[in-house]
């Protein structure tokens, strides 16, 4: 079996997790207040009509059978009907997918740029004032609420200085580099502190290892040791965190899309909750969690590709 055999094996291992995810989202629908059939048919529907539709949707069946129906429907791409948008949930989700993906990738790129810059600056001058400053920035940054930070950025940079557009999503991808800069910056700032601490800690522990001493005694320049040896060796633990980071960025989009009025999935989720459009909430939750599972799988793949010692 080669190192990449897990690419075939891992999807099978993911099956229990995916079943668990579908169980949770199914239970969410069971916990919904009110009767979805009554909501769908309106207050004037007769009892016979309600019973008929209930039977047609299989909602009069035992709960395990209903779960089976749910699973089959999801596998066929049927996430149910959105009551607020009066169209299939999957269509509503796919319509709003592009802005969210754009924002996630943009936010991730900014996060990585900030993290590497801050962590490298801190680790190379360990214990000195730059290190202390980075530590302070991370401590303070952890507690900055994204929604407030976003509003402050809008207030200063968009309304006062008129540097950026206030909100929205542009049609052309290139325009969105500008249009989505503040939202992407906001979610990046929320995730950067945790990731920076992690990368800095790894860099510091790598700097104390034997190969660094060997490199120094060989007379290699400090910069060479750092960028050629220490830095690449420190990347792997940080990359393995990316699954969690993406999961947090997704959470960030919920808030940030609402603040900056970006027509994506996060904003859709908040609106769906407020409109009690439970099937949409359920669909988005399922969609996002599958996204996280796939990201984690990709991260595993990258880890194996980067480091021959890693076996999965």
């Amino acid at each position, binding site marked *: 079996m080669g190192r990449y055999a897990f690419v075939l094996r891992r999807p099978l291992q993911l099956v*229990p*997790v995916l079943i*668990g*995810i579908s*169980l*949770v*989202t199914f239970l*969410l629908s069971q*916990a*919904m*207040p009110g009767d979805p059939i009554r909501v769908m048919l309106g207050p004037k529907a007769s009892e016979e009509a309600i019973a008929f539709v209930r039977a047609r949707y299989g909602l009069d069946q035992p709960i395990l059978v209903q779960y089976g129906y749910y699973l089959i429907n999801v596998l066929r791409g049927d996430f149910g009907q959105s009551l607020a948008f009066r169209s299939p949930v999957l269509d509503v989700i796919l319509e709003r997918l592009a802005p969210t993906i754009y924002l996630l990738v943009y936010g991730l790129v900014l996060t990585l740029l900030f993290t590497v810059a801050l962590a490298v600056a801190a680790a190379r001058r*360990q*214990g*000195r004032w730059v290190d202390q400053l980075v*530590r302070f920035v991370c*401590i*303070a940054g*952890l*507690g*900055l*609420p*994204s*929604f*407030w*930070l976003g*509003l*402050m950025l*809008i*207030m200063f940079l968009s*309304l006062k200085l008129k540097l950026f557009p206030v909100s929205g999503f542009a049609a052309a991808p290139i325009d969105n580099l500008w249009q989505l800069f503040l939202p992407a910056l906001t979610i990046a700032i929320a995730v950067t502190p945790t990731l920076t*601490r992690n990368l800095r*800690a790894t860099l*510091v*522990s790598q700097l104390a290892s034997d190969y660094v001493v060997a490199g120094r005694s060989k007379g290699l320049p400090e910069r060479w040791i750092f960028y050629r040896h220490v830095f690449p060796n420190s990347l792997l633990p940080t990359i393995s965190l990316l699954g*969690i980071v993406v*999961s*947090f960025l*997704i*959470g*960030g989009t*919920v*808030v940030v899309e*609402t603040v900056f009025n970006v027509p994506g999935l996060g904003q859709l*989720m*908040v609106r*769906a*909750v*407020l409109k*009690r459009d*439970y099937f949409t*909430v*359920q669909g*988005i*939750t399922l969609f*996002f*969690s599958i996204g*996280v*599972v796939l990201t*984690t799988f990709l991260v595993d793949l990258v880890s194996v590709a980067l480091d021959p010692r890693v076996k999965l």
Partner: protein
Amino acid sequence: MSAAQTEAAGGTSRWPASLLAGVAIVLAWLLVAGLGPSFSPHDPIAVDLANALVPPGSDHVLGTDSFGRDILTRIVHGARIDLMMAFFGVVGPFLLGTMVGLVAGNFGGVADAVLMRILDVTVSFPYFVLVIAIVAVLEPGLTSYFVSLTLVNWVSYARLVRSEVLVLREADFVLAARLIGVGEVRVMSHHLLPNAITPAVVFVFTDAVLTIVLGSSLGFLGLGVQPPAAEWGVMIAEGQLYLATAWWICVFPGLAIATLAFGFSLIADGLAKQLHTAP
């Protein structure tokens, strides 16, 4: 390098500055929440449209909102809600997660496998998204916030406690206790728990930061504490429309959240330094 070493050597005998500063900030907010409301001359809820959108000045130190309510008064009253959210938002996950970690780590086998699969599934959901989904089906409000946080956030504590217990259960003093016939429950509560709890306790303060941010975010989105309550996130949501004309409505409650969260963040950093759980 040598400077860092001397600092570390000196740091073991005294408390880190960040810890002291953090404790001071959190104590200050506790004091405000405890005593503030009895000193404030204005009502936090009553509408007074004659005094709407007054800028910061002598009558209203931090100005008033669009309903004419004094911002400072609302921040002081809101401190109770937000501190309560931080406290109860951490207690539920801490208790549930610690118990799960203890049981999974101690018994291993089937119990461990089942609990860890549940954990795997829980962390496959983006944290904030699952909290919102649970809040949605339970109806937005403070109670469903606590319930959903407990259901989602126990995983961090379970992991921390479990990994400690896995090592500790092989330790001599635990084997000795078992040998002389100490029962499972007592082994867990008196021998494993006290030795396994430290990382979880340190995480409580980081978690408090996340919980404050999460709770106020839900308030802001209209999914948490409901208006007209003076919760800080709710206040910022109400000021959103007046960003260009009445900046003070948004700015000051946000500073309140940021300082309180900063206090907990400093404590977390200082504790980690003091207990040498971080480099």
